[in-house]
């Protein structure tokens, strides 16, 4: 048994083609092979470039397709602040209301603020007490001044007394706020188990208000414009609270929501009453002293001997003088 031999190699092997390097001989470049090599090389670069391009497109699409946070409107701070006041023209005399308006307007002009005056009865409250107008008016101001930095709601029965103090420095500057805010204070004195946060930073505060002897005081508060402010005002104004017959209407509604909803409490700071809410008389809260930014007439009625108008007489001259001197 035997097998076929493998075919022999020829005795005359074809000569190998000389190796061509670009430097050695230019004559060989005319032969077939280098052209092929060159073509292959260009194919290679083409393929690589194509691959790189696809990778680039992919990366760009990925990066571009990322969903960023929705573009929230950032208030630019023009005007820096808006003063909000609700007037009850049916119950109070016109001269009194005009004087209060004048007080607000002069203060606003001094610092380049704007004023927002609302009237009781302007908004549909669905049977809720008229004092709820302050809440919806503040919400309206937020809508009307989308670029305002701050809102200062100040009750009708009050005067701005110190024209030198600016709200964004006197109250809202983060460093100043951190000094001012009262931490770990029961929200409703004396014994609410819900206390203001102890680890709040100045720049995280969006809502500043004060307490008097009864609890939170909603006659004067400062609000930083933004999404959260709308959230607060709309939640506060919820029809379900308006229909609940809180004893003190919107004040108790605020006490309620602030105690039950930590996302609200987390942006709230309590400051000393005389920072922005001094009272014309002691007893219910801290009494006004010269140099305080504002005074509110407390325990006064629209008409009669204890009327707010007569209470305001004590301060009417004073604020005009201080505004003239400033």
């Amino acid at each position, binding site marked *: 048994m035997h097998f076929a031999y493998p075919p022999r190699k020829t005795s005359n092997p074809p000569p190998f083609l000389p190796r061509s390097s670009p430097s050695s001989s230019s004559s060989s470049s005319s032969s077939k092979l280098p052209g092929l090599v060159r073509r292959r090389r260009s194919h290679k670069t083409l393929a690589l470039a194509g691959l790189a391009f696809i990778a680039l497109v992919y990366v760009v699409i990925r990066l571009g397709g990322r969903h960023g946070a929705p573009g929230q409107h950032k208030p630019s701070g023009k005007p820096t602040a808006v003063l909000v006041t609700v007037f009850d023209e049916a119950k109070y005399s016109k001269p009194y209301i005009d004087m209060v308006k004048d007080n607000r307007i002069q203060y606003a002009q001094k610092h380049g603020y704007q004023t927002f005056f609302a009237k009781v009865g302007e908004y549909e409250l669905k049977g809720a007490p008229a004092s709820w107008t302050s809440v919806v008016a503040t919400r309206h101001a937020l*809508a009307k001044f989308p670029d305002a930095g701050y809102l200062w709601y100040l009750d009708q029965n009050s005067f701005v007394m110190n024209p030198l103090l600016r709200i964004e420095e006197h109250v809202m500057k983060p460093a100043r706020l951190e000094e001012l805010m009262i931490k770990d204070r029961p929200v409703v004195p004396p014994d609410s188990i819900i206390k203001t946060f102890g680890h709040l930073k100045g720049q995280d505060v969006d809502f500043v208000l004060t307490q008097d002897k009864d609890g939170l005081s909603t006659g004067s508060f400062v609000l930083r414009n933004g999404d959260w402010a709308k*959230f607060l005002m*709309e939640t506060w104004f*919820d029809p*379900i609270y308006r229909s609940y017959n809180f004893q003190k209407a919107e004040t108790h509604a605020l006490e309620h929501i602030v105690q039950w*909803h930590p*996302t609200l409490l987390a942006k709230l700071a309590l400051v000393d009453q005389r920072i922005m809410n001094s009272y014309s008389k002691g007893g219910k809260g801290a009494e006004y002293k010269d140099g305080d930014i504002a005074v509110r007439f407390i325990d006064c009625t629209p008409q009669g001997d204890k009327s707010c108008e007569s209470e305001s007489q004590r301060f009417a001259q004073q604020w005009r003088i201080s505004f003239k001197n400033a």
Partner: protein
Amino acid sequence: MSLSRSPSPVPGGGWASPGLNLSASGRSSPTKGYSGSNGTPVMWESARLKNTGRSGYPSFSTQNQGFFSRHMRSISSNLPRFSSGNQTPYAEKEKLGRGQWSAKSVPLFGRLRGIMGRMGRKVKIRLIVLLLVFLAIFVFYHSPLVYYWRRSSWFGGGQKFVIILAANVGGGVMEWKGAREWAIERDSVRNKKKYVSRWGYDLEIVDMSTKKRYAHEWRESWEKVDFIRTSLRKYPKAEWIWWLDLNTFIMEPSYSLQDHIFNNLERHVYRDINEYNPLNITHPLTDSYLDAESRSPVGDGNVNSVNLILPQDCSGFNLGSFFVRRSAWTDRLLDVWWDPVAYEQKHMEWEHKEQDALEQLYIAQPWIRKHTGFLPQRMINSFPTGACSESGNDTRVHYDQKDRDFLVNMAGCEWGRDCWGEMYNYRELSYYLNRSLWERFKEDLVAVAWFKLTGQKAKL
């Protein structure tokens, strides 16, 4: 001699224990038994008896001891034989390289090298490319790598989704939890687990058993809120949370959430509730004190500002299957969702508790409206014919197998319908619709042909 544990019997009838010298291992022929390490073999009396017994077999074991011992001979004679060194019988040697192929003469590696050597360069490259393609297919579709691939934020983005499944509803406190309830739970959980492991999402199974905490505070079924909050904290990379009730079944596990919904969110989500408005909610708001964005029917119109996506069924919002996005807005919503004052006034009217509360919030609060979007119900929450059946079959609401709806929610089946029956039917339907090619070939072609030929149904 001391044993660290008590000796235990082995099937052969001896005792598997270190240090014991046994040889009665059930084999017919005595093997070279392992002698005790200490040199002094100890034997149990019964073992000694067996060993010295005339039969050679242990009394209680048979010769048929499993597949291999029974078929050892036939298997081994069928295996290819490799000649091993000098033990090759003489007769074989003479036929070397003729009758029987011998591996020793050309080793495997050498043969491969030979094949490679004879191949052309082009063929080689093509082979390598083919190999790479197969490798890639394996790596990306069949190895565990695919899971991580689909999870990663760059490629699949699966870790951005967390599914919360509400299991153990009631916990058997109010109603008896029988075999059917357990079966429903098992099927539902398995369905979601499979889906999640396929697409690289996270699954959080939460325990909805009746707890004193909620019962005491009159806030049954507001646990949802707490669970969503906990999950947001537990999965810091999650962007979307998908809440699913227990009585749901993912019919099409091959749909990923990204493909099905989120890659084209703006196409699927409608923000103007007038498009489908079973509750007749007045939209948009017209109050003069609101800004333009709050009064617009579509919020700011940017789909990225949608933070809550839910379907509407024939009677309003449905929270059996909905999405929430991680955001400050969501924190606020989860915070105000339950409010004692609202509850005190409305709990008699609110039959569906948190669902009605959300409707109330949507109606009253512009800030909630602005960031809520709706999905057509059948995208994530098809109903079986039993639910919403008052007005007959509704193409907006009811499952249609022709359209291959994504998910079925047997909503309300616990009120007088057969939950387990529905769950079973939809499970089988889902398996049927998602058969593999091979199964289709077997069942649609071979079995049918067989039936035509023989008149008998074949089970393949």
